[in-house]
Each structure stands twice: as structure tokens, then as C-alpha cells.
């Protein structure tokens, strides 16, 4: 025993923390991760490289999806403007009449659909959870890598394949799928109903099935890693909130995505095999279909059984990242760590029993809606608790406004604004006028779209040094933040009022109805704001790639004075993350500014043992 203690003492001197020897050195040579360019940069099995792959692919899709939204925003804001300049790219989808080019309605809907699918799945699911789960789970838990680096690599490549298929669908002569990201049949099942439902839908389904494979491979890995590869001392209740969030996210994905696939398989059968799971008594294209007996509502149940958890799959990782960034930069423990974890768990659980709040007006029995209203509004409680805790984390802090922190604060503001409108929509009576109007568009863009982006930006700015050993430019980052915060509110805030005037979403033109045709100025304003806001994202992209190569070098191992394990690795950590043994953990992740009379330190890393006279704040002492 004494012998061992002696050994540990040595290691502390060597690495700055007490380490466990796990025999990693023994197979150091003959590196299985990084032997050549291909295995290092392309078919890499190193979780850090895979994280970067997810991030950069996500950024690619973010730009594509964003540009699409600008094109359809042009249509909404300036329907009479000449779009012929887009013809070289969009070709036949721009019809030229008297020298004035107009966007084809069919393609408008294709753009809206692709925009939604790309942002929800490719950017905010893969690009967000894929990036940070991969980067942070092993690093913050003290693991060498994911439980299965091979599955992890496959997870990325299935995502890549999925993206490639979706990309290919953009070039079909009948166009990509155009029935909305929710893909409700019969519209999505019948090529006669919409040209996008022909080859475009086939590729859409195929792409998303591969996407689900990617999510599942990733998710299994995240769960296994969290459960099995935590370093010594890292009990569940000592995990940073980021890890809790990724963990619950992965469980949600694992339980809900397969249900989506089952829905997709049934749609495929209806499309290809003449079954009628979702079809009944349809007359279309001059013909009465023989398929009878199905129910389009069934699909909606299957879809939203994923769909609602999916919105939390998107927001939970962002919440985790924000909690961490707020705490580090306020130099204070996250307020109510236990309540935060319990809220994540409660939200995760509840998110499985609220799906039909998307279907209040879908023709389901109104009695059933009573139950879903109750569960839905219960979700607001843990959400509120999280908000209060974030705000209290700032209280009496010593706040450093770096770019990451700004985005984290912005996230809280957006989550409040968008979460509150959820309370309207979750109340079925109020959802009667609001359903499928711009009010819903405003709600979910603010609470999910923009807020999740803010969480992601906070994460990228904050952990950029962990990825590239350099910092992103902070001035540009701040400019990016203010432009995006103001821009995003400018874009989405007025949409509430349009929704309250009854303007339906997914309209190619507002001119056909008098009640929707009174917002010309508003729509122009929104479109201009959207273009400017997109411009600020260019700032981010440029900053990102410039900083990879020329950014300010990271000189200290732990530049933010953070307590978590990722900052104990060398600046340019190779595979396996820690050159020697892996660190052990002795305390929770939030000992910032500890001055409770037993201790007075600016921050205490998780690797530091609790001194005998010190009061400890993790699980054992909180109850």
C-alpha cells in the first residue's frame, strides 16, 4: 500500500495530477490511430478528429441550409423582384417571364423542406451532438477514447453517406423532396401529389435511414463510454453537466430514432409495395387509388414520437455546453448542480410523453389532447428551473465576456423567449389559432434553431483551443455574437405577430389572402435582417478557418482556469489524450471561487484531492 502511494506521488509531479497507469504506453508504438494521412485525417478513429469531422461537415451543411433560407426569404420578402440572376444555379426552377425571373413554387417548397431537414438533422443533431459528444465525453471523463473507436468512425461515415445522398437529391430533375421536414403522407407517399415525392422522397428516406444508423452508432458509443470508461473517482454525480446532457441525449436518440425509421419503412412500403399503412380513400391524378384502410395520423404519431425528443436531442447538448461555459467564465459553480441534472433527466423522460402536442389539430380525439396538454406544460417546470439556475450562476460572479461566454448568455435569453411561447402552444386551446402559423415558426426557431446555434457557438469558441491548439479571434467572435443576437431577434420576433394575425406557415406567397397580405414591410424587414445575419455567420466561418492556421497559439494547458479534465491533457494531445497515465478525480466539476471558510481558491481542478479540513460539495454532502 505504501508502495502505491509513493508511486502516485511521483506521477503527480510528472503530469500535474495524480494518474493511473493503465498500460497505455505499452502499445504506444505502432500507433493504430495516426499512422498515415488517410487514417489520421479521413478514416480516423481518434474521437478528437472525428469531432472535427462532424463539426466541419456540420458547418458545410449549415452554410448550404442557410443559403437556401435566403433564397426563399427573398421570395417572401420581395416576391416581385427579379430572380433571374439565380438561374445559372437553379436552372429550370427559375422561370423567366418577360425578363423577370420568378422562383417556382414547387422549388420553393423543396428549399423549405431541405432547409428544415438539413438544419434539424445534419447541423443541429450531427453537427452539434456529434461534435461535442465526441470531443468532450472521453476528455472530460478521463477516457483514452470512445468505447468503440471503430463504431465511432463508422458513425461519421454513415453521416457522410447520408449527406451525400441528400446532396445528390438536389440535382434530380423532379427536384428534391418538397413535403416539409415532417414528411407527412399521403403527400410524401404519392409521387402524383408532388413531383418532390418522386425520386426526391426516395433519396430523402434513404438518406435519413443512414442518418439514423449514424446516430445510433454514435449513441451506443456515447452511452457505453459514459457508463464504463469513466476514470477512477468520476462518479456519475461528479460528471460535468455537459456529459450528463450528452448522455441523456444519446439515450433519447437510441429510444426514439428507431421509431422514426419504422415510420419511414412503412412509408417506403406504401410507396413501393402497394401497401396502405397511411393511405385511405384517395383520389389523385384523375384516379381513385386502390389502397384503403390506412391512417395518415398513424404516421404523425410515429414521426412525433421521435420528433419531440428530437428537439431535446438538439437542445440538451447546447444546454450542457452553456452550463459549462457559464460556470467557467462566471468563475462560480453552476447553481443547483443536482437540480440541473434532475431537470435534464426529467426533460428527457417527459419528452417521450408529449409528442401529440404537435397533433392537437390533426384530427386526433380531443379528449386525448387533455393528457398531452398536462404533460407538455409540466415540461415547462424543469425548463424554468434550468433558466433560474443559469441566471443564478451569474449572480455574484466575476464574469469574463469572451466570445464563448457571450454566446452562452445569449442562449439563455433566447431559451427564455422561445420557451415562453411554448407555453402558449402547449395549451391546446391556444394552439387552435396558433397551430401551423408563423407563431410556431417563431417559437421553434428561437428556442431550438437559434438557441441551439448559440450553444454550439459557445462550445466552438470555448473548446477551439482543445481542437486546434489555437484561439479563435475574440474581437471577430464578439462582433459575430452581437450581430447574430440582434439579427436573430430581428428575424424571428416579428413572426410572432404575423402568427397572431393568423398567417399560416409554409406559404409561397402571402398575396392570395387578405388577412396574410398586410405584412409586406415586415417581410421585407425580416428578409433583410436574415441576409445581414447570414453575413455575420460568414465572419464566423472565416474566423474559424483562419484561426486553425493562424490563430493565437494556446500557451497554457488550462487557459480558462477550468476544473475539468480536458484541460489536463497536453495542448496538442495525441491519440489516447494523456501521454502517461489517465488522471483520477477527487471532486465535482464546479469548484470555482471556493471561499467557504474551509478553502479559498480561484478554482480547484477535479484532479486535486480534497484536503481533510475542506468541505466537499459533491453527492455525499449535498443531501
Amino acid at each position, binding site marked *: 500500500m505504501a508502495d502505491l502511494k509513493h508511486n502516485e506521488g511521483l506521477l503527480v509531479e510528472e503530469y500535474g495530477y495524480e494518474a493511473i497507469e493503465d498500460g497505455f504506453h505499452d502499445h504506444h508504438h505502432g500507433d493504430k490511430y495516426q499512422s498515415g494521412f488517410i487514417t489520421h485525417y479521413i478514416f480516423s478513429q481518434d474521437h478528437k478528429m472525428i469531432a472535427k469531422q462532424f463539426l466541419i461537415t456540420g458547418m458545410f451543411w449549415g452554410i448550404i441550409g442557410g443559403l437556401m433560407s435566403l433564397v426563399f426569404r427573398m421570395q417572401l420578402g420581395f416576391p416581385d423582384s427579379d430572380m433571374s*440572376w439565380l438561374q445559372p444555379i437553379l436552372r429550370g426552377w427559375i422561370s423567366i417571364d418577360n425578363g423577370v425571373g420568378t422562383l417556382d413554387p*414547387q422549388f*420553393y417548397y423543396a428549399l423549405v423542406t431541405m432547409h428544415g431537414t438539413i438544419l434539424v438533422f445534419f447541423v443541429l443533431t450531427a453537427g452539434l451532438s456529434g461534435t461535442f459528444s465526441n470531443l468532450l465525453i472521453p476528455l472530460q471523463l478521463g477516457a483514452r477514447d470512445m468505447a468503440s473507436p471503430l463504431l465511432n468512425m463508422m458513425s461519421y461515415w454513415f453521416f457522410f453517406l447520408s449527406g451525400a445522398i441528400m446532396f445528390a437529391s438536389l440535382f434530380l430533375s423532379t427536384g428534391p423532396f418538397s413535403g416539409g421536414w415532417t414528411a407527412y403522407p399521403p*403527400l410524401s407517399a404519392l409521387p402524383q*401529389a408532388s413531383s418532390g415525392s418522386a425520386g426526391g422522397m426516395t433519396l430523402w428516406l434513404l438518406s435519413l435511414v443512414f442518418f439514423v444508423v449514424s446516430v445510433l452508432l454514435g449513441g451506443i458509443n456515447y452511452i457505453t463510454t459514459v457508463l464504463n470508461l469513466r476514470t477512477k473517482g468520476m462518479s456519475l454525480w461528479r460528471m460535468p453537466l455537459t456529459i450528463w446532457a450528452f448522455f441523456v441525449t444519446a439515450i433519447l436518440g437510441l429510444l426514439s430514432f428507431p421509431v422514426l425509421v419504422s415510420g419511414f419503412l412503412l412509408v417506403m412500403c406504401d410507396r413501393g409495395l402497394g401497401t396502405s399503412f397511411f393511405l385511405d*380513400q384517395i*383520389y*389523385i391524378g384523375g384516379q*381513385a387509388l386502390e389502397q384503403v384502410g390506412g*391512417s*395518415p395520423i398513424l404516421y404523425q404519431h410515429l414521426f412525433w414520437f421521435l420528433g419531440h425528443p428530437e428537439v431535446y436531442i438538439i437542445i440538451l447538448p447546447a444546454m450542457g455546453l452553456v452550463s459549462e461555459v457559464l460556470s467557467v467564465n462566471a468563475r*462560480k*459553480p453552476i*447553481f*443547483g*448542480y*443536482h437540480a440541473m441534472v434532475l431537470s435534464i433527466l426529467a426533460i428527457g423522460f417527459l419528452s417521450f410523453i408529449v409528442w401529440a402536442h404537435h397533433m392537437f389539430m*390533426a*384530427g386526433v380525439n*380531443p379528449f386525448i*389532447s*387533455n393528457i398531452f*396538454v398536462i404533460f407538455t*406544460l*409540466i415540461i*415547462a417546470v424543469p425548463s*424554468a*428551473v434550468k433558466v433560474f*439556475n443559469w441566471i*443564478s450562476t451569474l*449572480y455574484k*460572479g466575476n*464574469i469574463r*465576456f469572451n466570445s464563448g461566454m457571450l454566446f452562452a448568455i445569449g442562449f439563455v*435569453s433566447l431559451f*427564455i423567449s422561445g420557451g415562453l411561447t411554448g*407555453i*402558449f402552444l402547449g395549451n*391546446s*386551446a*391556444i394552439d*387552435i*389559432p396558433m*397551430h401551423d402559423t408563423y407563431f410556431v415558426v417563431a417559437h421553434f426557431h428561437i428556442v431550438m434553431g437559434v438557441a441551439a446555434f448559440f450553444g454550439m457557438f459557445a462550445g466552438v469558441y470555448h473548446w477551439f483551443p482543445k481542437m486546434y491548439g489555437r484561439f479563435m479571434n475574440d*474581437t*471577430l467572435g464578439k*462582433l459575430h455574437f452581437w450581430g447574430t*443576437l440582434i439579427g436573430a431577434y430581428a428575424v424571428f420576433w416579428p413572426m410572432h405577430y404575423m402568427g*397572431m*394575425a*393568423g398567417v*399560416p406557415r*409554409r406559404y409561397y*406567397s*402571402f398575396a*392570395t389572402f387578405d*388577412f396574410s397580405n398586410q405584412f409586406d414591410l415586415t417581410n421585407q424587414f425580416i428578409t433583410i435582417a436574415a441576409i445581414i445575419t447570414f453575413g455575420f455567420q460568414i465572419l464566423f466561418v*472565416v474566423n474559424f478557418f*483562419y484561426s486553425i492556421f493562424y490563430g*493565437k497559439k494556446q500557451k497554457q494547458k488550462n487557459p480558462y482556469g477550468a476544473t475539468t479534465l480536458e484541460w489536463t491533457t497536453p495542448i496538442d494531445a495525441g491519440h489516447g489524450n494523456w501521454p502517461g497515465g489517465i488522471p483520477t478525480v477527487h471532486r465535482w466539476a464546479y469548484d470555482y471561487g471556493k471561499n467557504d471558510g474551509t478553502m479559498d481558491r480561484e478554482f480547484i481542478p477535479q484532479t486535486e484531492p480534497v484536503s481533510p479540513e475542506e468541505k466537499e460539495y459533491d453527492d455525499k454532502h449535498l443531501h
Partner: protein
Amino acid sequence: MMYLIGILITIFLVVIIVQIGKVNELTARLRGEKQAAQDGNDWNAKLMLLFMVAFLVGSVWSAIYYKDYMLGYGPNLLASEHAVGIQFAFNITLFFTGIVFVITQILLFVFSYMYRYREDRKAEFISHDNKLEIVWTAIPAFVMALLVVLGLVEWNKSMADVGENEKPVGYVSLEESDREDTYLEIEATGKQFGWILRHPGKDGKLGEKDYTLIDDATNELGLVFDDPKNIDDIVISDELVLPVGQKIRARITSRDVLHNFDIPHFYVKMDAIPGIPTHFVFTPTMTTESYRDHLSQFPEWNVPADPDDPEGPKRWEAFEYELACAELCGKGHYSMRRIVRVVTLEEYNEWLTKNEEKSFYLTNVRGKLGDPFINKKLSIEERIDRRNKEKDAEKKKDDAPAPDAAPSTTPATPETPTTPETNTEGNTLNNSSSSENSNGTTTIGGEVKNIIEKATEEVKKEGEEAKGLIDTPKDGGH
């Protein structure tokens, strides 16, 4: 060329961006990094406050700015019974969420400002506070419970179907007490891209449909003409005519893909699903005319409806309730417009009488190949004949001066489906007729009462008659 310029501009921008970043870092180095960091921090803290003020003021200002656009506020009255309750729930929710919104946003940004980094400041170690946490879990829970109860009461009221003892009517009763347990069932069928609207006719009942009978040219809805309930069903495609103050049960279906029956001013919204008919029960509370009168008080509604035509009708004159589609149904989703015309009870009954002869069966099937009632005399035809004769007689009387005789119905024009022109024409005629009898509302009322009495009798008769009619061919067949 355009593209080349585009690329050049992009490169230019990128260079500028990079330079901004660099310059700032250089000046920072000149000032000393620490000082620069402190300055930057202060700046951003101040911006936080500034943003907060602008954001809160902006949100209030914008709400005021948009007040006159939103339904349920400003001039835009809600025009159905249940909508008022929903609006109440909305406003209560707005009240509570508004308070939370203002308080949390203020705390967020003010804390950010107050606790900005200072070298001499120490963050305080506050990890949790069980009492506080229980309070702020309990308060939202309590408010949510309140909102749930309020919302569900409105929800169950709004979604209630007609009761079992409520009767479908064709003609509507002018007595409120008689109307209480009646409803008028109309049908809206969505198709790419429009609504096919059906009124039940005098019997108050919508006839059977069979989607395999649909034929765009001859039978858009797939009406089953063996079903006598279909004989008097009126199929229109341009406007829905509804009597004010009468409970309406909209039966909502679709022929092809999902649609959604959406009348914003009534807070009515329900998916139209092929194979699964849905419904929405509501009671319009304002006629189109009275809504227009109401709007005419507001200056912003007193501008020309069409800015290019300053002499044309004013906005309030052009106002119509509109029926839209609120479920993505394909490339024409945004264009499924129908007018909803809410009229007085009297006008509705007149409209029904006038349109009786335009029933889909009479105009498209009667006397043609496949007419199941061929060679049978139908009571609906008797009624129409009788009315035409009465009218002829009145016309003859008109030649001799007879001041009180107002035309009660439009002349029978054996015209096929209702076109907008005939409808507007009918409308003005109705109006003029009722204004001519300025002291004669009772006359019209009495007349209508007669019509209703006759109608109920005839419905009974027709039902029996129709049974016989269906039986006849069967018997003959064996």
C-alpha cells in the same frame, strides 16, 4: 461576370474581416493585453445593458405597433363564440409569461453587467439553495396548473361535438330558443388545390360519398346519388355561406392529401384527412356586413383596398372572412382561398331557397343517364315549380300596380353551378328586397317561418318517398 464580381467581393470581405481581427489584436498588444481585456470586458458588459433596454423597449413597442394587425386586438374582432374564450386564455398566458419574460431577461442582463470581471472582485461560492430552488419550482408549477385548467376548459368547450339530442337543420330557425338544439352541418373537402364546399339543402343532411365515384368532370365529390339525402345537397366551390348565430358543424375531409380547414377570424382549424372525416363545431357571431361596418370606423381600413385603384372600394368594403389551408399539401398550398360569407338568418334561408334548384343532383344528374330517380317526381322539383308559378303570378300582378309585393326570391334561372356573379347579384337583390320592406321584417320572418314549416313537412314526406324510390328498383330487379 456577375459571379466573378461576387467572388471578388467575397475575397475582399474576407480580407477585411481578417484585418479587423488582426488590427484589434495589435492595438491590444500595444495597450497591454490585460488592460485591453479589461476594456473589452467593460464594453461588452455595457452592451449587455444597452441590448436589454433596446430589447425590452422593442418588444413592447412592436406589440403596440402590431396591435391593429393581430386577431383579437384592435379592429380585428373575433367572430365566433369559442374564439373569445380562447383569446381570454391567450391573454392570461400572455400576462404570466410576460412577467416572467421581463423579470428573467432583466436579471440575466443586469447580472451580466453587475458582475462583470474586475480584478479586485472575487466570485462568491454559491452552489445551491434548497429553499430558493423549491420556491422557484413550485411557482411555475402552480402557474402551469392554473393555465392547464383554464386552457382545458376552453379546449373542451371549443372541441365539443354536437350533442345527441341536437338536430341537423337545413333552414335555420329565427327564434333563438328554437335554434338552441339545432345545428347546420356543412362540409368542406380539400383537394389539390382548393376546397369543395357542400351545403345539406333543406333536409339538413349531407348525402353519402364514395371516393371511387369521383370524376373531376361530373362528380368531384363522389356523391352517391342513390342516397336521397344527396338530392338537395348544394355543392359550391367559391364561397361558404353561413348564418350568423347558428351553430355550425363543419365536416372536414379530403380527397387526396392532408389539408387543414382554417378560418382565422373564427379560430377554426382542423386537419382534413382522406378517409377520416373530422369536424369542428362553431358559431359565427358577426355577419360579414356588420364586420365591415365595424371596420369602417378605423382610419387604416378607410384606404383603398387596391392601392393602384384609389377610386375603388375601401379596405373595409372589400373585407371578407377567408377560408385557407393550414397544412402543407403541395405546391399550391398557399392558394386554397375561399370566401366565407356570414349572413343573417333570414338571408341564409333565402339563399337556400334560391339555391335549391342548383343542387348538384338537379343540375348535373337529373334526367341524365344513371339518374337513379329517373321518371320519379321529386318533392324538391314540386317546390321549385310551385315557387316559379307563384313568381310568375306575382309578375303578372306586378304589371298591375301592387306596392307591397316584394320579390321574395330571385327569378329561377335554370343555370348550372353557382358562379360568383349570380351570387353577388342574388345578394344585392336580397338586400334591396329587405330594405324595400323596411317595416316588413315580420313579413320576411313570417314568410320564412312558413317555409320552415313547409320544409319540415316535406322532409318527412321526401324521406318516405325516397325510401319507396330506392325500394322500387330493387323490387323490380328481382
